[in-house]
């Protein structure tokens, strides 16, 4: 089973590496969105600094949302998804490998660029590492929940807006806790509690989301 997990991960990472330009698109999108905020709100430093954590988090969330559609799309189109469902290894395990690959390819570059974006908006000092920590916990959570919902929409044609409608309400707690931690750190308040909540939710999601995703895929492909 470990071999299947490794093979799946290796294949996904190799595919991503062969088309490494694609991995840059979410990052570019995030940079564009974050750049629009100062234009819309004015260059006033105190205002931008106050909202910087939240803006970066929402930007990362939106860029992950846009790339989520691709998690199962390619496999669905070339028929590989049916083979995954029929494989002797548990589907949840293979799906977990896919989620990990997706997180490595999409979320890690976003996390790498996030401190830069936050700094451009005026987030400084001890809040920076907190933002990084919050993103390290929030992005896998989003990837896990998002993959479950993407699996549900696999059988539909127009899934982009629908995915947003399904994911954003469920992402509310993640945004609240992640942005809350950054905001608390900015004000010099203790920020461990929201981060601990995120970590707890992540621990739960790591166990449950692959199983839920496997069920969702079976529902979406069964016709």
């Amino acid at each position, binding site marked *: 089973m470990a071999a299947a997990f490794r093979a799946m991960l290796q294949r996904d990472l190799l595919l991503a590496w062969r088309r490494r330009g694609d991995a840059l698109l979410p990052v570019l999108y995030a940079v564009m969105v974050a750049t629009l905020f100062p234009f819309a709100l004015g260059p006033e430093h105190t205002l931008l600094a106050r909202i910087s954590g939240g803006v970066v988090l929402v930007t990362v969330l939106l860029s992950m949302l846009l790339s989520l559609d691709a998690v199962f799309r390619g496999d669905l189109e070339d028929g590989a998804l049916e083979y995954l469902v029929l494989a002797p290894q548990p589907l949840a395990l293979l799906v977990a490998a896919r989620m990990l690959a997706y997180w490595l390819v999409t979320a890690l570059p976003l996390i790498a660029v996030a401190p830069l974006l936050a700094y451009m908006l005026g987030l400084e000092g001890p809040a920076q590492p907190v933002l990084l920590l919050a993103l390290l916990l929030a992005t896998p959570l989003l990837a896990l929940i998002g993959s*479950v*919902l993407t699996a*549900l*929409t696999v*059988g*539909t*044609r*127009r*899934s982009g807006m*629908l995915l947003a*409608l*399904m994911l*954003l*309400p*469920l992402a*509310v*707690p993640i945004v*609240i*806790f992640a942005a*809350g931690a950054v*905001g*608390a750190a900015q004000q010099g308040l203790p920020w461990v509690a929201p981060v601990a*909540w995120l970590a707890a*939710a992540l621990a739960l999601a790591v166990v449950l989301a692959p199983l*839920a995703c496997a*069920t*969702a895929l079976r*529902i*979406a492909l*069964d*016709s």
Partner: protein
Amino acid sequence: MNAIKLWYHKLGSPPYFYVFAGYIQPWLWTIAAMLAVAGLYGGLVLAPADYQQGDAFRIIFVHVPAAWMSLFIYGVMAVSAFIAVIWRPKMAEVLAMESAPIGAAFTLIALVTGSLWGRPTWGTYWTWDARLTSELVLLFIYLGVIGLYHAFEDPRQGARAASFLAMVGAVNLPIVHYSVVWWNTLHQGTTVRYFGPSSIAPSMLWPLLAMTFAAKFYYGASLMQRSRVSLLSLERGKDWVADIVRREPTHG
């Protein structure tokens, strides 16, 4: 097999359910209408004006039942969705999917009446209060379920996928509510206070209860009607639908 169990299993069959729903539906409509008339008369005419809010409080007789129903219907939908995903009976899918638009409508009513009520009492139509925000998220989850159901070509597959989403939403809803409460206390103190639940006068309580039960019966009646229409559409290739169409010539 005893009689209740037999009846329960019979209800799982679409033709039987269609006839049963058609039989109880007029009763549900009648009870709902009678309760609503009584409740509205008691609430809008008989109940005295509130000593603090004047006549503005009277919207409570629509707002509170709608808010309760928005959660109650989600509960019913989540239970049917659970049954639909695990055991896959067709009726559970139909009931879950036909509950969703009614629940979304009640949620919208609760939000709109709440914001209309907020204007005279709090001075604003909208505030990021924990309950308002949770209710808004609930509306989004309802819309997601409805949207996913209609995104599939095959309605049964759509019903199963949307049922699964409803289950995920049911797990998430308490988390959303408590995180919003936490967020609200972090950002600002409670600016909005609901008047105490204990201090409601009996002359205001009975119309409220009447309206609550009116909303429950309305939901039942509406669910029966929607399910019957949905069944006719889902089972349009079956003999029993053809029989009904032959027996009831088109009305125009």
